[in-house]
């Protein structure tokens, strides 16, 4: 009788632990599902330079203090992704690996842009082991009206602004490339076109 109780007790605990593990797995899946369900497409705000026109040119300096001109045609004809970030913005930090792999895989020139004291940014670059070009310049942020971070602007090889918007996820980043490929300025314009096409 005593043995039976022991075995029953042990089996019940096993069942309870297994059920709790299932609950954890379900919670994880809810989290993953939620990530997937997020609206895809960089949110384009009403402000900012016009998509389809020549992108603003602005002066910035790199972390060594050398002036860098942003905007205008690229000598190699490569596309340029300008990513505006701040060392204190956790979403920006979360996107750094995605940016690095984007730069590696797509042949895109990726430049990180910010403003503020240079030492702060140098420390951030060292801490996060950032290998991408990093420029500083208040004029740059103003020219592209990057008031919300992380903000990204995609320029084609001819220096024309092709897409821009707030990017919170890797999907948002990719949607900027998608926007350029499809020749639409924003997800809003795309949906509008779809709606008109259907009507």
């Amino acid at each position: 009788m005593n043995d039976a109780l022991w075995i029953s007790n042990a089996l019940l605990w096993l069942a309870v632990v297994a059920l709790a593990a299932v609950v954890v797995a379900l919670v994880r899946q809810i989290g993953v599902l939620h990530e997937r369900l997020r609206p895809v497409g960089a949110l384009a705000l009403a402000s900012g330079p016009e998509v389809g026109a020549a992108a603003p040119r602005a002066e910035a300096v790199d972390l060594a203090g050398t002036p860098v001109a942003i905007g205008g045609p690229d000598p190699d004809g490569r596309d340029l992704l300008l990513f505006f970030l701040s060392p204190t913005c956790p979403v920006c930090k979360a996107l750094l690996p995605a940016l690095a792999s984007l730069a590696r895989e797509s042949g895109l020139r990726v430049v990180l842009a910010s403003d503020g004291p240079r030492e702060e940014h140098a420390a951030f670059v060292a801490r996060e082991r950032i290998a991408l070009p990093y420029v500083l310049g208040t004029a740059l942020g103003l020219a592209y009206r990057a008031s919300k971070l992380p903000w990204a602007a995609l320029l084609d090889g001819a220096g024309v602004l092709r897409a821009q918007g707030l990017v919170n996820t890797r999907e948002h980043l990719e949607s900027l490339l998608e926007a350029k490929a499809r020749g639409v300025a924003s997800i809003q314009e795309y949906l509008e076109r779809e709606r008109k096409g259907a009507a």
Partner: protein
Amino acid sequence: MIDPVAAWLARLALAGVFASAALHKGRDLDAFAAAVAAHRLVPEATVGALARALALCEIAAAVGLLVPASTPLAAGVAGALLALYTGAIAINLARGRRAIDCGCGGPARVPLSGWLVARNALLVAAALACAGGGAARPLAAVDAITIGGGVAVLALLWIAAHGLLASAASFARPAEAA
């Protein structure tokens, strides 16, 4: 006098909670310091030192709980830390600043809510259970199953509850910008 099984469960669970919290804080002390700063209760200049001190207290509490001689003292430290955190959370809830990260540690950011206060109340109860010494009865062999299974279940439920709090928060605020 509480049953030794309950006392052991409380001790191990509390030690586990503090050990995992301290581990996450140690891994990303900057994030914890940012969370402390976001609570806006101490001057900016002291945030870094305070974050480090809190993480050290948590490690001390976790280790102390496992050593029989120091259990009551460590339970006191744990209770005091929890009271401090709960107070900080309650003040910011009263200020209406719910969106800040609680700094609890863990993979996801968990914003402030009444649930955290309730959770901490449970942990304080566990700390009290550890502080009260003396066993009501000697441990039997079958207790090993209860304690082992109990710790496993509590750990899993802890992870699940945090996951739910984190995803509930992101459901409430979709596509929040930084």
